């Protein structure tokens, strides 16, 4: 079995990719996908730790997170659809009514 570090590095990579993606991408859906990537990075870390610590908690938590992520996806996509109906665009830079 691969050592713990490998899993952790992968999870860190996933998480960082997510973070970078959130900051640099303009499309709301892509931004949202990147957030999912962050959550999955965390999930991987939980599972890896759980397995190495011989604790069920890690895997158990992942189920909760997956449920939460599903709910989040439902609501997030609904909001994006709503925005798209109003402005025909999902570019987050177009969200500029509220500022200062």
């Amino acid at each position: 079995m691969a050592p713990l570090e490998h899993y952790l590095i992968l999870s860190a990579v996933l998480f960082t990719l997510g973070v970078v993606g959130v900051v640099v991408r303009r499309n709301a859906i892509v931004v949202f996908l990147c957030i999912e990537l962050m959550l999955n990075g965390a999930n991987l870390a939980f599972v890896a730790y759980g397995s190495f610590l011989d604790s069920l908690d890690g895997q158990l938590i992942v189920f909760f997170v997956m449920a939460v992520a599903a709910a989040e996806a439902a609501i997030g996509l609904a909001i994006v659809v709503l925005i798209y109906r109003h402005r025909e665009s999902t570019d987050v830079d177009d969200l500029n009514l509220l500022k200062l």
Partner: protein
Amino acid sequence: MTIPFPQIHWAYLLPVLLVVGGAVFVLMWDAFFPQRERSFLVTLTLAVLASALGASLAAQPGSEAASMGGMYLYDGFTRFVFALILLSSFFSVLLSAAQRSLEEVPAGDYLGLILFATSGMMLMAATRSLLMVFVGLEIFSLALYVLAGFLRGQPEGNEAALKYFLLGSFASGFLLYGMALIFGATGSVDLMEIAQRLTTSPPSRSPAFLLGLGFVVVGLGFKVAAAPFYMWTPDVYEGSPTAVTAFMSVGPKVAAFAAFFRLLLAVGPRAGAELDAILWVMAVLTMTAGNVSAIWQSNIKRMLAYSSIAHAGYILVALAAVRRGSDLATGSFLFYMLVYALMNMGAFCVVVAAGARGEERTRIEDYAGLGYTRPALAAAMALFMVSLAGIPPTGGFVAKFYLFSAAVKVGFVWLPVIAVLNSVVSVSYYLRLVVLMYMREPGEAPARPGLLGPGWSYALAALVLAAAGVLNFGIFPSSFFELALRSTLLLN
């Protein structure tokens, strides 16, 4: 093989069950009897919240505070925080009923979401488990994302919802990753066990633990709108319906601060001086950013948003004091939240009551001459502003006094000094509104809009309740402060 059924203290669980049950009931009722009067559902929701409040006050926290393996924790602190959260939900339901622009929305969905959000906040505050913190946080966040954009026809509302959603999920990602790292470093997500591990085998210096702690602080800092994670607040507060804004400015903050609090109590004393520095910087930045930005606002909801950021900064002062282990700080934190809830809700209530159908009065200019056109409303607003500014004899002054003296007591010097200077600055924008109301001729605003709408009795109830509270806590604060102080006794 028998699986042992976990012991459940129903009396302790009752407040949450009532709220969740009420939410489902309200949602279903509206689905099956959509033609019923809206006021019926409002009354029902208020009744649910009131009975939950009664249940939580009636349940005396005993020795068996923790049930379900620490996932649910009912101690004095929980009890007080429950009361705060339920109070803020109660107020926001009153405000929602009074707000003209919310008259057309499906009441069942709306009120159901408020109740669900309430249950999430309660769960987040009443737990020892980081997992439950995350789940509770997501429950109320998801509900609030929807509530922020509830007026689907308004582009500002949509924008607020999307901004809140994207930024909020981003912060949740950090929170979750931080929890994963803490779990890896300590082998547990239970705060009590984490604290034990930290004392027995000190991994507290391990980078994974510190990084995790930092990420969790980011996630919670976002929810309480601490610098540098506060930028969403003004935009979202401005774009959301006012009643929802009022809710967002109190409930989630109470819950997130409560979780923050438990975290600091558990790991704080063992997490080293960096946490001190981080909290210090966060508190200073938060209150300065809030106060200074509030000065030049022209929209009252944005101004109140920045004001709420500034108040979060003051509360962070209490958190920093808690890390150094001070009972006084915990007591003053709870008392501050109580007073803050009342005065903030009151101020938003005036904003709601001053609005007319289809058009809210959100520009600060709209309040010119309110002292002549609607003296009672203006007097209430003046009271809330004076209290937010921390001028005696209002609750805001006493609360600030407790808070800053707690910080002084644990040996902070510059933090209270900066906080005092900040509250000095803050007076200028609060009083600007008062001056505008009393020292300016009324503009072209409609003479007597709003209050005469069907929801006026709800607005009146909220106003009277908030004003009485603010005055009472300013003049006779002792007994409630003692209560807040006692609420900390059963902590860990």
